[in-house]
């Protein structure tokens, strides 16, 4: 034990390695309902080389390592399930390059989403990245590890579809690159080979992402959020289909919540429109509201609840404190858009049974190709009963997702098992083979997505 600690200090310096109760306690906690899982060490390296040394040490000592970004998955995915070393990646936060004409930026994976938004706003205001719904302290690497989606999901897909290149430290300690950067041609494309698709969405269990080339997209001068409301949830899929036919929205999110009472049993669609001029914005509003959605308005089943609302980036959310309890966790699932009505109904029912005000939302991905549907369950951190209820509600929801033929996005161990139980056996076996090939010593975030557990 002593020698591992000394070795870590040797790598990162005394200030950035700890085996003290205070750090171990802090890093044992997920912000959601997961039970604490204590690491034995915590380190905060600053360079790829330092991370590499830590990985090699872990292989030598056969001790688990868990890379941690912002810790915002709320599914315990960065908790050390088998002890070991938690590697806090957030000191690796350099913005290395922004290529304006190629519309990409190369960053270290521990950089926060907020820093990227701020940097681009100041230095490259015509460019933006897809900012996930998590607080701005979330990191790029963490988000890609879970196939996150952000506020550009409708036009451009998952955040992991917006990657032009990766640098990864393999579980055995080698540094590898994928995409055009692997043949030293710059960082402008991920496809074709050598893009092996082995690290995005693998929850940090196949390697540690250290550098990312992120696609950037046009950022227009004016951004507004408009809201369209309906009472009948069955209308949501068709309205979203219509809206995705029009195109022109930057972000489409359908949501409903019991609190505040204003929103209860109503469904709002937040439609973000951008433009470089008032004419452009008005043109888009016209196509969306006066042309596409007017039949709903005239028949009285849908209405424009608000227009020209401010849309801040980074987005600020106060939802964590709804039960005045400092906590919530959500099941996020990738669902067909057609499943929205049933997802809402089941979520409302589960919430009611657990005495939690229901909160659901669905963010459209692509042209209604799917949606990230989330069921949020708030709890009071000081009241273990509410934590239990939230946990049970989450597990029931995971099961409902499977029943509805959905896919659980970033599941915790409970949900991982549900997914694996249903998975094609050959696919599952291939996952196992890949994992064993990459990580023969089983040190890379063990316990997550472990086949044959």
């Amino acid at each position, binding site marked *: 034990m002593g020698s591992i600690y000394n070795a870590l200090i040797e790598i990162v310096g005394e200030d950035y390695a700890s085996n003290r109760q205070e750090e171990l306690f802090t890093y044992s906690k997920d912000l959601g309902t997961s039970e604490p899982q204590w690491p034995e060490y915590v380190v905060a390296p600053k360079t790829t080389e330092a991370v590499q040394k830590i990985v090699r040490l872990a292989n030598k000592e056969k001790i688990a390592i868990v890379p941690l970004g912002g810790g915002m998955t709320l599914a315990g995915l960065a908790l050390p399930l088998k002890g070991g070393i938690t590697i806090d990646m957030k000191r690796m936060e350099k913005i290395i390059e922004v290529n304006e004409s190629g519309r990409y930026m190369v960053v270290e994976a521990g950089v926060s989403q907020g820093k990227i938004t701020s940097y681009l706003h100041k230095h490259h205001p015509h460019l933006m990245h897809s900012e996930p719904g998590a607080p701005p302290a979330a990191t790029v690497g963490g988000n890609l590890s879970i196939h996150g989606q952000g506020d550009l999901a409708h036009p451009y897909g998952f955040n992991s579809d917006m990657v032009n290149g990766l640098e990864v430290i393999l579980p055995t300690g080698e540094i590898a690159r994928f995409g055009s950067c692997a043949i030293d041609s710059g960082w402008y494309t991920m496809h074709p080979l050598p893009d092996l698709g082995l690290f995005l969405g693998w929850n940090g269990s196949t390697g540690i992402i250290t550098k990312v080339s992120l696609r950037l997209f046009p950022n227009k001068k004016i951004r507004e959020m408009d809201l369209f409301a309906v009472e009948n949830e069955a209308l949501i899929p068709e309205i979203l289909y219509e809206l995705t036919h029009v195109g022109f929205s930057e972000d489409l999110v359908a949501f409903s919540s019991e609190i505040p009472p204003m929103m209860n049993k109503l469904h709002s669609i937040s439609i973000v429109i951008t433009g470089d001029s008032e004419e452009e914005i008005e043109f888009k509003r016209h196509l969306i509201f006066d042309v596409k959605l007017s039949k709903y*308005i005239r028949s009285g089943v849908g209405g424009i609840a608000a227009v020209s609302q401010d849309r801040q980036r980074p987005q600020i959310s106060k939802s964590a404190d709804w039960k005045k309890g400092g906590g919530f966790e959500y099941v996020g699932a990738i669902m067909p858009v057609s499943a929205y009505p049933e997802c809402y109904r089941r979520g409302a029912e589960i919430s009611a049974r657990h005495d939690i005000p229901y909160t659901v939302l669905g963010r459209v991905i692509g042209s209604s190709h799917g949606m990230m549907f989330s069921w949020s369950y708030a709890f009071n951190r000081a009241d273990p009963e509410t934590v239990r209820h939230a946990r049970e509600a989450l597990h029931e929801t995971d099961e409902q997702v499977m029943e509805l033929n959905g896919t659980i996005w970033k599941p915790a161990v409970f949900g991982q098992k549900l997914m694996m139980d249903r998975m094609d056996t050959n696919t599952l076996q291939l996952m196992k083979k890949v994992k064993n090939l990459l990580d023969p010593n089983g040190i890379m975030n063990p316990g997550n997505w472990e086949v044959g557990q």
Partner: protein
Amino acid sequence: MYELKFDEDICFACGTYDCLVKCQHLELDPDMAGIEIEKIIHSEDSFVLHDCVTCYACEEYCPNGNHPFYLIVQKQEELNIFPLPEPLIKQGVQMGIPFRGEPEIQEINGKALNMGVFSQLTNRVQGRLFEGLTIMSDDPRKMFHYFCQLMYLHYGKTSVINERLKKVIDTIAAHKVTEVVHFHDECFGTYTSYAPAFGIDVPFKSIHLFEYLFNKLEELKSDIKPLNYKVAYQRPCSSRLSSDKHRFVSKIFDLIGVEPVDREYVDENAMCCGATIMGQKKEGSRQYCAEIQRKNIEDMKSAGAQICVFNCPACMQTLGKPVSKTGIMPLFMSDLCRLAIGEKVA
């Protein structure tokens, strides 16, 4: 339940039908108007019920105080001809439900300033003009207990107003107030126009904010330095319910040395902010709302206004940004008055 004190004979005897003829949003000559008002009175379908933009102006236009607008809203509900889509109505009705516990009732035994549902705007009622006035409803969590409900006139829902208003009146009265100055013009209209029209008893005296401000400014006259601004006034829909108090606008302007610009949309011809028109069911409502807003603001601009003086927070919320984009400064009347006595406004 409460009945609207409406006398149909007055309407039948009316030769001018000002309520409908003067309407800025519908085209009716006196003959048409006579026909349509009769249909409305007899609970028959009339295009007026479908196309009314709910600007409240006809309450002022009626020379007989016979409440044509309250009648229209009642009939809309009776005939299921709601101006807004159902989800927006439900949203509006649900919005008024208090859900953050009961209010703290502290006995005031005197004059109070009622913030209604604008508890977040206490910054607008600071300084010497408001000294000695106890503020009621300054807690945003409890403000819906003080919600005057009159907003539901835009929703075709007098039933909701009538269901909830007594409890709100009781809450205010429980503070043992003698006189209540209402921050929101619409609250004043509720207690001095709507409540009497429906026979709802109000056990406190209501004072219009502008009357209060004018009297206060008179007391502090020696501290007033003329501001010398050119101003436009955005007259809210609710002002139509208390048209006798509208005169305080020009009285205040005179006293504080600002010049109201010579523009089209003033006094009886004022243009509503359009907030509730935008979402209406009638085809073209969104564009119509944008058009009247544009005309209103252009009118202010071309008349040379430097400041747009607001009465109503909803108008400010709707028009404040577009007004300021044209270089005109949006200001609440209370803040303008504070500037006149040399105070700094946050």
